[in-house]
């Protein structure tokens, strides 16, 4: 290889390094979810000023909504929340109910809902909202597969979130996970209420699977949302433990995690 070519390569490597450094050096604040094991895995809790994805099957849409509302409730710290949704989602899984949100312990007064007609508008609006540092968080809800959610769109959202410190939450119902720059990715389904022990059943219980974590291992937990305390917890009495966290990823993330940036 000639010297000129080597130096070109070096320059390119250098510029890529420069582009990527801010992302990796970015050390977000974290907010504890309340669930001890999950917080330990997430090294303190949900990263603020980052994008998190929640995936669910079509019929699990309400559970996923509840889970993402819980994440938002933890992340926004009583600041406004913008909820961007595509028109189609209301037909498929019903409109977000303010009474229901209040029952979960969240404050409907903090919520501004944007009814976007299509995915492109929703995506653009969400990116705009993420850049507004007066907000606590932005939820983007899209039904089904959307080719618009490519790496570029995802990177845009992540950069906007990092610059403003606003937490972005993506609710993808009836969609398959695709490569993105999200900080974490969850797959959520509803879990049974614990067997009757004399207490009222029906508190939101989620079977939450952390399938991707940029800065740590993954895991799977049964999480119960405590409406009165506004946090996630281990259910008091749950019959059998679910699958333990897979051991194939070490807890301490080595530097090599950079290699899987777009995984």
């Amino acid at each position, binding site marked *: 290889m000639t010297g000129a070519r080597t130096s070109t390569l070096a320059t390119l490597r250098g510029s890529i390094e420069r582009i990527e450094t801010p992302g990796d050096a970015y050390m977000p604040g974290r907010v504890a979810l309340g669930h001890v094991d999950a917080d330990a895995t997430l090294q303190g809790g949900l990263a603020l000023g980052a994008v998190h994805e929640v995936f669910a099957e079509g*019929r*699990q*849409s*309400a*559970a996923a*909504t*509840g*889970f993402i*509302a819980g994440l938002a409730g933890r992340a926004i710290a009583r*600041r*406004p929340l*913008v909820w961007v949704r595509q028109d189609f989602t*209301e037909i498929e*899984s*019903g*409109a*977000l*109910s*303010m*009474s*229901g*949100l*209040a*029952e*979960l*312990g969240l*404050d*409907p*007064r903090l*919520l*501004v*809902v*944007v*009814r*976007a*007609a299509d995915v492109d*508008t929703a995506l*653009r*609006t969400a990116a*705009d*909202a993420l850049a*507004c*540092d*007066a*907000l606590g968080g932005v939820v983007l809800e899209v039904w089904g597969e959307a080719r618009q959610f490519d790496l570029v769109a995802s990177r845009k959202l992540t950069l906007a979130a990092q610059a403003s410190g606003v937490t972005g939450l993506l609710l993808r119902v009836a969609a398959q996970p695709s490569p993105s720059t999200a900080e974490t990715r969850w797959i959520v*389904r*509803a*879990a*049974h*209420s614990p067997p*009757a022990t004399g207490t*009222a*059943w*029906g*508190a*939101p*219980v989620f079977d939450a699977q952390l399938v991707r974590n940029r800065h740590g291992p993954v895991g799977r937990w049964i999480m119960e*949302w405590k*409406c*009165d305390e506004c946090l996630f917890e281990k259910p008091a009495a749950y019959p059998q433990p679910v699958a333990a966290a897979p051991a194939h990823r070490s807890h301490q993330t080595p530097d090599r995690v950079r290699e899987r940036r777009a995984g």
Partner: protein
Amino acid sequence: MFESAGPADNCDNSPCIVVARQNNALQISALDNAAADLGLEIGLPLANARAICPHLQVFDADEVADARALNIIADWCDRFTPLVALDSPHGLFLDITGCAHLFDGEAALMRIICDALTRQGFAVSAGIASTSVCARTMTRYATGQIIADGEETEAVRPLPVFTLGAEDAITRGLRRAGLKTIGDVASRARHEITARFGADFTVLLEQALGQGDAPISPRKPLPDYIVEKRFPEPVATEGVIASTLSRLAQTLVTAMDSQGKGARRLEASFFRTDGAVRTIMVDTGQPVTKPDVMDRLFRERLDALNDPLDPGFGFDLIRLAASRTEIVVQQQRDLDANVHDNDELAALIDRIAARIGGRRVVVHLPQHTHIPERAVLAAPAQQHLAVAMRAAWPARVEGEPPLRPLRLFEKPEPIKVPFATVPDGPPHQFTWRRAEHAVVRVEGPERVAMEWWKQDGQTLTRDYFRIEDEAGLRFWIYRDGLYGELVTREGASAPPNWFVHGLFA
């Protein structure tokens, strides 16, 4: 000032007429010069016209298209004065008070308008006078007249009576009475005229003579502030248009600032050289006082247009108007971060609303009703943000699981229930969206009676159940009506219907 637009003369010489159905007969409603030379006139039946001239070209009148054309001309006239009024079917009033000097005087202004319209192929007759009716009367007789203040009576007196534009019966009556000119009519005592032709005609006559004001009703309310930029050479590039808008925004803000105002509604009008006008409106939730905010709002709006701004051969006038303004309350913002946050949020809402429409950005207000689907009102965030942030929501019951679903279907979805154990009990299983769900846990019923004092036809009581199925999914289902309440046409009792109304997390 008044002008009249008629159909254009066609190129080849065969006479053209436009016919409309009146009194169940086709009559001429408009004609060109060639046809007029043949002795045809408006109001003549089509059969007679054909008898006079067999090779007539006949067109059907299209009043809707005429009105549209008149509106487009009125849009174009907005560049001369903000006060343009329609005088259907084919007249326009322009209130040029204080505008004429911008175009080198009244005569020059009238020439500009007449030339432009003639170039477009319209037959124009224009006149300027101090009252609208006087000007209109003049245009019916001759074009290009400018009547000085105080000379209306002298100018109008010799004109024939039809120029007043009264009903046909009145005009005919006046002719039969031997009153051929307006002067003849005016020489009679007013009470005689009123007794014979009615008070309205007397008013019309006095207005034509310049006595008494004849107000016009402009198409659009006068904006509070207008700034505009005229280009000697039409501009078509996006960069120039954007920079013009930002410069206009600065001028507008300076003008509003001196009176402590902020804009709630902004209108940018783009006048194309070929006469087409495009107006783009932006509403804001809070008064805008910064040029860069206006600039950004318009950028969002222009970006999101379904049919983008088409400059054609270029714009020769760009106008920015604040059509609704509000006094700005200055707030202390150094110490209270909340105020700043709310401003930022309102600005974000404005930007999103500018792009996708104000009704698509909503906040929610609690309503005083037990009916689940009406318990919350979604209101446009631009107008209701402050109210929504102070709204009092019912507090949740401590220690209870959620009693209302997180997702609510706007229209409850019917489910198939094979049978229920006891008449008022919950189902054991049900089919929703072609999937079977076996009920594992139930809580209920929670009975919600409809608001019978409102006459909206929905009077069936609902029994709601919270249900968990074998997969852990939680539903909010209800039975519409009580057992035995529904009766078929034959008199037998019908089983009530079941619906899924919402989903719990």
